[in-house]
Every structure is written in C-alpha cells, then in structure tokens.
C-alpha cells in the first residue's frame, strides 16, 4: 500500500519512461538471457509475460475491489472512479491473459482452448464476471446509486480471484503447469530473475496506464461540470 501511494506521487512522464525501460529489459532477458526450458523448449518463453499478465490482472481486480470497499466504507469521493478504472485495466489484462494463454495452449497441448480444464474455465468466468461489471455500471444513471451498485459488484468479484488462482493447484489433470507451490516457485536462476523483472515491468505498466486513464476520466468529469455550471 505504501509503495502504491509512493508511486502515485511520481510524475506520470517519469513513470512512463521507467516502465518502458523496464519492459525493454524484460524483453531482452526473455529472448537473449533466459535458457530454454528442458520440456517445452523455446515456447516456454510465453510464460514470462503470460503469468505476469495474469498476476497483473488479479492485482487490478483486487485494487478495484479495495477502492470499492473504500467507497462503501469511507465514502471517499474519488474511490468510485478509481475502482472503475482499476476494473477496466483488469479486463484489458484479462483479455491478454486469455489470448497469450490460448497461443501457449496451441503449442503445448495442440488446442486453442480446453473446456475440460477447470483453471481455464474459472479464469474465463472471472473475466466474464468483470465484463458484466460494465453492463451493470452503464445500465444505471450516473450518481450515488450507480457508484454503490458498482462497488458491491466489484467486491463480489474479488472472491473469484483466489478460486481462479487455487484452481491450478486443485485441478486433477495438472495439464496447466503449476509454477508456484507452498515451497516457493518451481524454478530458479535466470528463469526466476527474468520472471521477476517481467512481473515488475507489467505491474508498473499497469500502474502507468491506470494513472493515464484516471487523469483522462477526471478531466472529462471536470469538463462536464464546467459545461453544465
């Protein structure tokens, strides 16, 4: 939380530059430094961004739920918009998880999608749940009622995050690789370093995009107020 509040004080252009540099470092590590996986070979390199994007999507949904809680609990006037933007970011990253996951599934399993895999279907359920958030939000007129409905819905969705995350561990078939166990990650060396850098890069990118979108939305709201004043 302290890190996020510190990050929110960093000027936006500086944040954008740092996230771009970190992304370049991550891509260099992925393609030039990280070794080939013994089982999957070159195709395993999708893992670095696929898993990082998945955790970033979970973080965005969790942030959306946290802001929703702040809206309901402390009636923070900025929290509703912040929750909405965080959920929006989560849906964008969720789309990227589904797309990169499908490509990885095609190379590894020979199928774009497997309906029998609980972890895939549960992530899709989580994704569709948050897609429906926008249907709910835009079906109610702007005002306190819309903010309250959206906040309650975003809070319900957060329950699906641990279910989706744990599904990979409780799935019987174990087709989906299990990379994080109770004893830590299932990998080390350059693979771990590359994953950590990719994860940091994507979290920072998500935060930068969140700040850009939030600035735009606040500007839009102020402009509307000025127009109708």
């Amino acid at each position, binding site marked *: 939380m302290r890190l996020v509040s510190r990050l929110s004080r960093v000027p936006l252009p500086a944040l954008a530059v740092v996230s771009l540099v970190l992304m370049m470092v991550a891509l260099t590590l992925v393609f030039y430094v990280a070794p080939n996986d013994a089982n999957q*070979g070159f195709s395993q*390199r999708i893992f670095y961004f*696929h898993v990082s994007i998945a955790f970033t999507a979970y973080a965005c949904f969790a942030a959306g739920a946290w802001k929703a809680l702040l809206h309901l609990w402390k009636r923070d006037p900025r929290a509703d918009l912040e929750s909405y933007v965080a959920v929006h970011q989560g849906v964008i990253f969720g789309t990227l998880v589904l797309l990169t996951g499908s*490509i990885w599934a095609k*190379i590894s399993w020979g199928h774009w999608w497997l309906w029998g895999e609980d972890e895939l279907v549960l992530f899709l359920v989580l994704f569709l749940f948050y897609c429906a958030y926008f249907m709910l939000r835009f079906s109610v007129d702007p005002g306190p009622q819309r903010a309250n409905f959206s906040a309650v819905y975003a809070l319900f969705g957060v329950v699906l995050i641990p279910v989706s995350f744990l599904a990979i561990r409780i799935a019987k078939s174990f087709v989906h690789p299990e990379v994080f166990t109770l004893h830590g990650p299932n990998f080390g060396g350059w693979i771990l370093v590359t994953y950590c850098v990719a994860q940091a890069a994507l979290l920072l990118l998500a935060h930068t995009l969140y700040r850009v*979108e939030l600035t735009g939305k606040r500007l839009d709201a102020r402009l509307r107020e000025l127009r109708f004043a």
Partner: protein
Amino acid sequence: MTTAEKYVTAAYCVVFAGVLVYVVLIALKLQRLEREVDELERREPKAAEDERETIEVG
C-alpha cells in the same frame, strides 16, 4: 523460423498490439478533451461579452 518461435512471436505481438490499441484509444480521448476545452475557452469570452450591459455614453 520454427513453429514454436512463430507462436512465441505471435504471443508477444498480441501483448504489444493490445497495449498499443489501448494507448491509441486513450490518446484519441485526450484529443477529444483538448478540443472540448478549446471550445469551452472560445465560448467563455463570448458569453461574458453577451452578459455585459450596454450603457449610453455622452
């Protein structure tokens, strides 16, 4: 290029394209906001002029 390399490239291109589309959409929105601010700025002096009372001089 092997099949695995093609798929990995496609996956990273999808991520890049997704972020790029998002940035383009935000840029378009900011352009619209800029236009609206300009429009509002042009309207403000005109509205102030309309509100000014006309008085006879001399």
